[in-house]
């Protein structure tokens, strides 16, 4: 589904390489977790996959379902089925949640050549999802993420995911800021949503989340590279000993 080959990415503003030769292959139905110290480039990788401005691709390719992902516009990638749950969801004052969601869904449908969803069907769909995630009507009426708590924002991201039905999902620290109950709720949302044709890239600092969303692979990212790949036990190891065993691995390869 997704193939990243020797990707190197620098910032546009300053001459600084953040991703320094990263390769990763994800097949349909797989769940991959990425862990790594602060500043190792996890969010940068997500942003590059989603198509954010401000980066220069120095090297490498990213292939999604056989096509060159780096060539596509941000909204085209979204329509192809790429979804990123933001580490810090953005507030949009004055824009109601419902309006935002409907615009997003119908834009994607339009890009894919599907018919737009009418107001009644849309409402039914959203209300069902909101109910599962225990998001109140009052929340849904608010402007996008404005005045929402950290945990509420994260839940809102999952709601958007369920509505937009992407095939490839990046969860960037979706567990940070969630209380125990919310984490179960969010994990349930993700698990209900997962299927043999959907893949996940789960970025997290905590092994805890991986008890709920069980990964097929765990990758350790240090200084812009994946330095170690293992199964879910690797996360337990990190939890116990931290990253000290891996830091050297990052420095070694150039």
């Amino acid at each position, binding site marked *: 589904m997704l193939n990243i080959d020797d990707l190197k990415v620098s910032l546009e503003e300053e001459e600084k390489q953040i991703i320094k030769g990263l390769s990763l292959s994800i097949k349909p139905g797989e769940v991959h977790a990425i862990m790594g110290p602060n500043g190792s480039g996890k969010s940068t990788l997500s942003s590059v996959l989603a*198509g954010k401005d401000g980066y220069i691709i120095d090297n490498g390719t990213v292939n999604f379902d056989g096509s060159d992902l780096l060539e596509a516009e*941000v909204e085209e990638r979204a*329509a192809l089925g790429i979804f990123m749950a*933001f580490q810090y969801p953005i507030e*949009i*004052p*004055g*824009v109601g949640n419902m309006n935002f969601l409907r615009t997003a869904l119908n834009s*994607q449908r339009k890009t894919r050549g599907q018919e737009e969803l009418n107001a009644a069907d849309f409402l039914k769909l959203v209300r069902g999802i909101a109910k599962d995630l225990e998001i109140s009507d009052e929340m849904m009426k608010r402007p996008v993420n404005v005045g929402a708590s950290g945990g509420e924002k994260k839940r809102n991201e999952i709601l958007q995911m369920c509505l937009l039905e992407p095939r490839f999902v990046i969860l960037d620290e979706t567990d940070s800021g969630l209380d125990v109950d919310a984490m179960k709720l969010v994990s349930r949302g993700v698990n209900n949503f997962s299927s043999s044709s959907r893949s996940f890239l789960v970025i997290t600092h905590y092994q805890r989340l991986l008890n709920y969303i069980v990964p097929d692979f765990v990758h350790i990212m240090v200084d812009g590279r994946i330095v170690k790949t293992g199964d879910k036990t690797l996360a337990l190891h990190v939890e116990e000993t931290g990253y000290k065993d891996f830091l050297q691995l990052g420095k070694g390869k150039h």
Partner: protein
Amino acid sequence: MTDNYEVRDVIDKETLSTVKSVGDTYKYGFSTDIETEYAPLGLNEDIVKLISKKNNEPKWMLDWRLKAFNRWKKLKQPDWALLKIPEIDFQDQYYYARPANMKEKPKSLDEVDPKLLETYSKLGIPLTEQKKLAGVIEENPEDKSENRRVAVDAVFDSVSVGTTFKEELKSAGVIFCSISEAIKEYPDLVKKYLGSVVPISDNFFACLNAAVFSDGSFVYIPKGVRCPMELSTYFRINAENTGQFERTLIIADDNSYVSYLEGCTAPQRDESQLHAAVVELVILDEAEIKYSTVQNWFPGDENGVGGIYNFVTKRADCRGRNSKVMWTQVETGSAITWKYPSCVLKGDNSSGEFYSIAITNNMQQADTGTKMIHLGKNTNSRIVSKGISAGKAQNTYRGLVQIGGRSQNSRNFTQCDSLLIGNKCGAHTVPYIEVNNSSARAEHEATTSKVDEDQLFYCMQRGIGEEDAVALIVNGFCKEVLQALPMEFAMEAQKLVAISLEGSVG
């Protein structure tokens, strides 16, 4: 509710596709091929007399115009606004144009040139009104079941071409007609109130208007009457090289209420055109007027060629106790906008509100705002201004809040927000606050921000294209003002926001 929304969607789609097939970026950039009759080029006493004669005006009206013309000759064009105004040659304009087959005013809408009506349909005039203007459906009792009805007066170049719902309004005692008709039919009302809010020589452009105004709308709501429907005027400049000078006079007598909507568009032309309108509102005891404008005159092209020069004087006189006025404006068009809808709060406990969205893109310039003149006791005013600049445009908010010595316990609140798209445009805020009374209070808040890259990325990651994302964010920024508009207008305005910002990103 949902159904209405659906219906509206369909209409808009039709309107949009019709228009897309006609113009390109500027939605209303088509012109209508109708034979037009012009007065001779330039301005002199004879032209003033000619306009008066074309309208079959009584002598008092002609005298009033001539007085204005003589004053105007001595006035100078104001230059205090933050606008670069190319020199306007007032002798190189036509001051009167009308569709040739309307020498006699149409007695019924059936006599109106179908091309004219086609134009209105392209303007997005609500479907029911289009049909009425086209005479397709009779006014029948079933209409009463509709949630919202709007009576429309359409002014094409210099002439009012038709008013809908006239009979029904009349039975409620409401007078809604063209001002030329009012001058003949209701001379006492016109004599009493015309020029009583904006005096003949108030300013250069208002004075010019007083001399040469050709038509406009007149509304009188009698004592104790709540106007049974919204009233609306669509102004359209079609003829080339012609100035448009409409005059609107609305009187809300004691305990009355009316909501009035004004829409304006013009075709796409290389030559700039002058528009100098005057709107006077008179609000008596316990009465209320809501006046909403969606101004979408042709803004000129990306390089600043063509477009309407819009110099407008709008003023509301809250003469009565507890009288209320609310101005709401969405200014997306015009190459130059010079406009300050104002409230004179004379009556005790009177209140004035001003909600404004001004969008400038490409080479557009806007200097707009309001004046709140507090004279009575316990008067209240509220100003919410949202300025959006994109391209190389300049956008200035200019506002005066003046609280007089007699105006005890009066309050003003001003909120003035500017949003910038890109880094070649400018936003300026020029507030003047004069409080001459220790029991009064004026508050002013101002912010300037940029369309946030992260917000854009967030929207686009969810599948929304860049221009739609900008429109969404800007509409969110303007929400407070959009909410002040009647619903149907609000939806039209939201679309306009999107259209006027096309090409502002990427």
